[in-house]
């Protein structure tokens, strides 16, 4: 019985992901990173502007690493404290998700550390940030190429 439930659950989650993807296209500008990943990359949505830099440069292939990120408001550039940030992503061309399940910890003053990122293949990747602050919620996507 467990298997059928898992399959159904999988379909439900897939639908949720597709809706995420639609939101991203609608709400945020994508940003293509340089392959080295050694400079800050910024992406702005409707409410939030997110910047990231990999703590390991150049962006490592097939190795678990962390990103420093800062989240600011688009309106007045204030750091966003206490946001809930979830990380998703994958390789759209290969129809698979991230090989890891990264976790975010807040460092303070609008800075967040994303631990547990890994890009297991060469090619085009997307990292989706699902930022929720109070009643505001937005999905932003970083595009990068390894």
């Amino acid at each position, binding site marked *: *019985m*467990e*298997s*059928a*439930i*898992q*399959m159904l*659950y*999988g379909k439900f*989650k*897939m639908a949720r*992901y597709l809706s995420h993807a639609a939101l991203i296209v609608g709400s945020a500008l994508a940003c293509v990173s340089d392959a080295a990943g050694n400079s800050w990359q910024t992406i702005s949505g409707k409410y939030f502007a997110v910047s990231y830099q990999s703590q390991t440069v150049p962006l490592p*292939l*097939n190795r*678990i690493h962390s990103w420093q990120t800062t989240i600011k408001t688009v309106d007045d550039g204030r750091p966003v404290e206490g946001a809930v940030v979830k990380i998703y992503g*994958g390789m759209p061309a*290969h*129809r*698979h*998700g*991230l*090989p*890891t*399940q*990264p*976790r975010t910890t807040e460092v303070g003053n609008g800075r967040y550390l994303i*631990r*547990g990122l*890994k890009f*297991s*293949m*060469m*090619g085009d990747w997307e990292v989706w940030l699902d930022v929720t602050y109070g009643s505001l919620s937005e999905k932003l996507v970083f595009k990068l190429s390894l």
Partner: protein
Amino acid sequence: MPFSLRADSGSPWTGAEIALLRLQWIGSLEKLPTDPTNRYADDPQAAWLGHRLFFDRRFSINGRISCATCHQPDNNFTDGVIKGRAIGEARRNTPAISGIAYSPWFFWDGRTDSLWSQALEPLESPVEQGGNRTFYARLIYSDPVYKKSYELTFGALPDLSDRIRFPDGATPAGNIAQKKKWDLMSAKDRREVNRIFSNIGKAIAAYERKLLPGTSRFDRYVEALLNNRIEETDATMTHKEVAGLKLFIGKAMCVTCHQGPLFTNNSFHNIGITDPATLKPGYLPAIIYLFTDRPEPDYGRYRGIRRALKSEFNCLGEYSDAQEGDCVELIYAGRHHRATLGAFKVPSLRNVAQTGPYMHAGVFASLEEVLKHYNTAPPASVGRSELAPLNLSEQELEQLEAFLRTLDSPVNAETRWFKRPSS
């Protein structure tokens, strides 16, 4: 190193391609990293003991099966059959194990996260070695040579002759009777047995770490290329093989997953392989499995990661020697169905021509069949296949196959590690 080879005379390679070839070259293989989960991983005494345990047929409930029954040294440490045959038939194909110590995950579905915890599973699998924890602990205790070697490496053994404290046939991984015996043991004694059992795995792992991949014709080609020894490159690989290599790192995109000097990214991918021995999932309720003798579909990594997270022998567990910071692969492992459902570990391609049948279910007998699968990319029956059809010509498929045959190489280890120990 020169990157502009034969630029004036039509080199087959661009600078970027040469940089990529260098990454695939055995010379780029870093020294085997230490295993923080196993403090005995590089202990010579542990490897000595592990070598003996690997070949010892007494390490099975019927006294006829050892690790080497399926991981045969004369057969590149695999067995040449569709699915491993020991006491019964295993669920999946037997993988080759040279260079396996570099991997963060083990088994086709990555259900263990260390080499030593991998070695424990077949010992207790009813279709492989079929034993149980107290059986193996007592085997070490009752053999004077093993007992001495064990105690030298891991410390004193408890009095395992006490069959009230340590009953025969006790394990939490067995049938109801075995589980009951295990539950009746004291918590301290259960831990003692688990400690001995995990040390058996750690000794076997110390041995398996000696089995490293050797230099292939492909590696000699790249080395000559990097050193601008053009005549040597021409003598090492034929035009057909070079054309296959070009496809491998280019149009056929094999290198996206079969990447690095071991030709694997040690990750999990769904390439749409269906095991004909299992049911197709379809949309039938799972209750159907109760009315058939065919096993349920193979969900691969989706189940594997869940088992790894639950295992008492994982990186974070009591029997691991690692600190929490060493366990990032386990802590951050993806478990979502998008990354795991129907996904299996990317195998190394070193010696690939010698290690068929192929895929987790051993469904392809030849490289030709494997390449045909990639060329047509049929849909997956479990999850979604990540492949898109390559649409290569017959000639291109032959070139790719010719290249794959240049990856043959002997295992790079002292000859004593290939043989059954003499004493």
